[in-house]
């Protein structure tokens, strides 16, 4: 198989993770069933979610406001206690507001899971190395913040157990996906956040 990064933005970049991000996120989201609400953080994470579930009204995706995905997931989870809420975000975005892990741990909603797609790089800005490629462990930070259910996934066969934890934990849960650094094709994106919000609310609440 040809190297997908050959000549691309991520060419020559390395990470300690080896998972294919698109494969890992899709497998994890597929295992959650249809009745979940998803907040997708900006850039690469949103691409992974779109590639996994398509253009779906139960997803709200960010195009900016870096650092807000996890706290938005918290507000949504508290507002919708009967639905499982998943935040999918990258290492760069989570590092920007890493205290949110403590905020989520203390609030400890029974229905909120965070999936961090950690490629150890800031892909959107040219694949500069992030803290997680230099020794920072976001799973340890999640644990230290007080989140009780935390998993680091490095192998594809560990995804089933992580998915089960996300589905069944009666409290906040955190999954760190250690993925390879690559630059998958861009997904079509909606930049009109107001339209996106209204579509999400229409599907969930029956009104915009």
């Amino acid at each position: 198989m040809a190297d997908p990064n050959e000549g691309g933005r991520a060419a020559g970049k390395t990470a300690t993770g080896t998972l294919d991000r698109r494969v890992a996120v899709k497998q994890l989201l597929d295992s959650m069933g249809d009745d979940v609400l998803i907040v997708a953080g900006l850039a690469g994470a949103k691409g992974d979610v779109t590639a996994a579930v398509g253009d779906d009204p139960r997803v709200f995706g960010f195009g900016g406001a870096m650092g807000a995905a996890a706290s938005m997931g918290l507000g949504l989870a508290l507002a919708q206690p009967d639905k499982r809420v998943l935040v999918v975000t990258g290492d760069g975005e989570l590092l920007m507001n890493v205290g949110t892990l403590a905020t989520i741990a203390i609030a400890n909603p029974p229905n909120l899971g965070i999936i961090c797609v950690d490629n150890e790089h800031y892909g959107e800005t040219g694949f500069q190395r992030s803290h997680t490629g230099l020794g920072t462990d976001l799973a340890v930070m999640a644990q230290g913040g007080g989140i009780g259910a935390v998993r680091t996934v490095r192998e594809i066969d560990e995804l089933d157990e992580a998915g089960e934890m996300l589905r069944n934990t009666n409290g906040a849960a955190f999954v760190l996906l250690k993925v390879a650094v690559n630059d998958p094709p861009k997904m079509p994106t909606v930049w009109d956040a107001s339209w996106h919000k209204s579509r999400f609310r229409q599907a969930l609440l029956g009104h915009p």
Partner: protein
Amino acid sequence: MSDTWPEEIYGLLRENGIEQIGYVPDAGHDHLIKRAIADPDVHAVALTTEEEGVGLLAGAHLGGSRGVLLMQSSGVGNCINLLSLPRAGRFPFLTLVTMRGDFGEGNPWQMPMGQSTQPVLEACDVTCFCLDDPGEVSRTISAAITTAFVSELPVAVLLGQRLIGAKVFEKR
């Protein structure tokens, strides 16, 4: 004698369906925070930074709920980039800001952000209502709730140091 206006504010928030109260602790919000924590029908969410409140309230709206962010004026500076979320997504946003660096401030470190609070919010398209008179509390908070949740726009009520009092500092 204790002021009755903080309880008036709490009553208005609850009568108007506010169920999520995000806060970074501040002396001026002490009563509201205590009431929120003790209220079984409210999620009192302790934040590590005010920015998280912007995300929290947008998430609340996405899920059909209402929230308010309680913060001190210094926290407004922490929120700036994330205020693009309510603007880009046309999310309701209501914050009650207790002012420092406003009237009778004795700590010069508070002056820069206190004096910048309203211009910064307005530059981010957040409508500001200043509140200095205890007799105007109900009217002002009600007006802010209407603009936030009926017009679905970002609104801040600035609770001035004329209303809440200035923290006392002694000059050595």
